[in-house]
């Protein structure tokens, strides 16, 4: 099919782009390998590896255990605000991590709401730092993701099958065994490996909530080796460890996750004839509070300070917006071009893999080794940030665009070819309308992720070149927590606006 529609879909731009991706990935990788040489990881490095794995396993288990009852409750209940809650589930994915963590600290931190409540009744305070803090933050960011995946699974169960189970009066146990069990078996492995992979390379969370011998991830160790010890050799060794780890998990993810992860539909609620109403209500209430409280906290603490923010914050905001628009444009161009070429050469889809395996910090380390000492790290900060964020968003974009493109070509390719449509008409009138929503969503995700990214920039930035997330972190570090909250609020507002604008403009009419 694709071959027959060949003349209408150019292949060479995609091949060139894929080659560029390959070059951008292999050159830093070669530099890492060369620098690491035969150096073996030390005890601290192995400890970081163990902790990275351990927290990722725990985070994944926690997310799955909490997401199953939540998704089940959302799938079977209709209540006022349900649509808003499902919408809220989409927020953490595009929420800048630093802003989310800041919100969590406002709720669970030393002077946060929870501890204020505990102190009022004379209970000891909870610490938001260390392993439990990292797990809490990972739960906040991943619970919504897993819940949405499971919700789709529940909503994809054919209505007739549910009615049949009902008309056969299946016991709750049999109902689970024959209806929900098979769905969970199909969806959970993919969800688990996605969360696991994300948690393996989570940097900002570990940077703020972790640290010390007991709670250092590989990503954080790379940052410290670079920033504090200036030990590029050790950074290279750690980088290779991280690459192996995440690369393996990423490969498994690519293999397990079904290609068409459409958006969770908000409309359909399964008709349900059972009890458990109180349990579902409790789960939904707790989840809604847990997911909204940090956002509300950022809003409440940040709003008063927005007008007094120093100019440096607004300069950083302008820089971040510029970077994220550039990244979004690059991602759309690259994903579009590679997807077109992938119609002919399906293997090209593996171009997405580096984005999954190569964390920004590993890539940054490699790039640094490549140019040092000819260029200063500061000179590298912006180009490396753009590159890292483009590569990171590319897999999402390809996953969104490629299936739609394949569908459009399969549906209309023959007809277009038989009508002898010109290439211009084929693109403008057939492909663009079919791909528009996917492209908008891809651009929105890329822009929001780039806006919130705190990876490469933290590695290289100097005093006068900061992105907004880095500026928030600096304000937090200098204990100006009100200004940090205000800057975080600006960051959240811009990220969500960028995402919303991209998604809105291109939505199906």
């Amino acid at each position, binding site marked *: 099919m694709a071959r027959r529609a060949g003349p209408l879909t150019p292949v060479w731009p995609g091949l060139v782009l894929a080659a560029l991706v390959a070059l951008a990935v292999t050159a830093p990788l070669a530099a890492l390998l060369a620098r690491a040489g035969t150096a073996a990881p030390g005890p601290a490095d192995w400890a970081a590896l163990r902790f990275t794995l351990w927290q990722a396993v725990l985070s994944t288990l926690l997310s799955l255990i909490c997401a199953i009852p939540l998704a089940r409750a959302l799938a079977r209940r209709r209540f006022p605000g349900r649509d808003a809650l499902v919408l809220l589930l989409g927020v953490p994915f595009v929420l800048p991590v630093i802003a989310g963590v800041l919100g969590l600290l406002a709720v669970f931190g030393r002077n946060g709401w929870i501890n204020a409540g505990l102190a009022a009744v004379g209970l000891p305070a909870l610490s938001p730092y260390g392993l439990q803090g990292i797990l809490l933050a990972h739960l906040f960011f991943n619970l919504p993701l897993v819940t949405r995946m499971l919700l789709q699974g529940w909503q994809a169960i054919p209505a007739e099958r549910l*009615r*049949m189970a009902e008309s056969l009066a*299946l*016991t709750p*146990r*049999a109902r689970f065994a*024959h209806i929900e069990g*098979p769905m969970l078996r199909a969806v959970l492995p993919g969800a688990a490996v996605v969360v696991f992979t994300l948690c393996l390379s989570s940097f900002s969370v570990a940077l703020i909530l972790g640290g010390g011998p007991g709670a250092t991830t590989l990503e954080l160790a790379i940052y410290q080796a670079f920033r504090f010890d200036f030990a590029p050799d050790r950074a290279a060794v750690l980088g290779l460890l991280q690459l192996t780890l995440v690369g393996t998990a990423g490969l498994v993810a690519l293999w397990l996750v079904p290609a068409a992860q459409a958006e969770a539909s908000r409309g359909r609620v399964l008709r349900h*004839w059972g009890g458990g109403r109180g349990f579902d209500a409790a789960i939904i209430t707790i989840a809604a509070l847990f997911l909204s409280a940090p956002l509300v906290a950022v809003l409440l603490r940040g709003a008063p300070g927005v007008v007094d923010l120093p100019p440096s914050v607004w300069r950083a905001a302008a820089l971040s917006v510029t970077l994220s628009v550039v990244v979004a444009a690059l991602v759309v161009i690259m994903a579009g071009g590679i997807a077109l070429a992938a119609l002919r050469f399906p293997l090209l889809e593996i171009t997405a893999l580096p984005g999954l395996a190569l964390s920004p910090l590993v890539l940054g380390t490699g790039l640094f080794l490549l140019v040092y000492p000819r260029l200063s790290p500061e000179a590298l900060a912006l180009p490396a940030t753009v590159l890292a964020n483009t590569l990171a968003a590319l897999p999402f974009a390809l996953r969104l665009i490629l299936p739609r493109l394949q569908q459009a070509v399969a549906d209309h390719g023959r007809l277009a070819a038989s009508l002898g449509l010109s290439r211009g008409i084929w693109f403008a009138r057939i492909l663009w309308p079919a791909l528009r929503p996917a492209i908008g969503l891809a651009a929105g995700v890329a822009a929001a992720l780039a806006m919130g990214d705190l990876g490469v920039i933290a590695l290289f930035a100097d005093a006068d070149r900061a992105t907004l997330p880095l500026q928030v972190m600096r304000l937090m570090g200098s204990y100006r927590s009100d200004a940090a909250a205000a800057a975080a609020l600006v960051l959240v507002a811009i990220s969500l606006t960028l995402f919303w604008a991209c998604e809105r403009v291109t939505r199906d009419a």
Partner: protein
Amino acid sequence: MLDLRGVVLRYPDFTLTADWHLPQGAEVAIIGPSGAGKSTLLAAIAGFEDLSAGAILWQGRDITRLRPGLRPMAMLFQDNNLFPHLTAFDNVALGLAPSGRLSAAGRAQVTAALAQVGLEGFATRRPAQLSGGQQGRVAIARVLVQQRPLILLDEPFAALGPALRREMLGLVRHIAQDIGATLLLVTHDATEARALPLTVLVSEGQAAAPMATDALFADPPPALRAWLGQ
């Protein structure tokens, strides 16, 4: 006896009323233009739709508030009648024991039901390894072991060709007669409807009282005439 007393189903876009009863063992086709509410009527009798007003009685007992699984009926849908991950045997077994645990006598009963629909030796196959007609037979074997006095069919076997569909319907009727069950069949096929003695015409917001099919088709009212394209 199935008794629909002043049944009203009200939706934003349409309303359906029904007020009639059926003797035990009747065989009834439900026909009408698409969107008129044939399937909705059947779903309401099965308990999948709540009534806006009225009541449904079975043998004089009000079943309006009963959960679908507790109503005295077996139902077949257009598709998705079988669980894809279960064998033919296990799919049929669910009709006998909703918990999935069977006694030895139950196992024999399932085997006999499969034999009766002509599927001896297919017990261990999964739906994907069966043809469309064989899948239909498995679903019918389940109706057989359910032994419910009311059998509801919502355009079943829609994916099958006319000959196979006729064969399946014959098989279901045979089983219904065996257990003395009342049969309700939603269909958009005039030939299928004419094979059954009684017909309910659903149109313009009303499910009319069942009429003798021959008489109805001999002198069709305007709505039926339009549906038939006459």
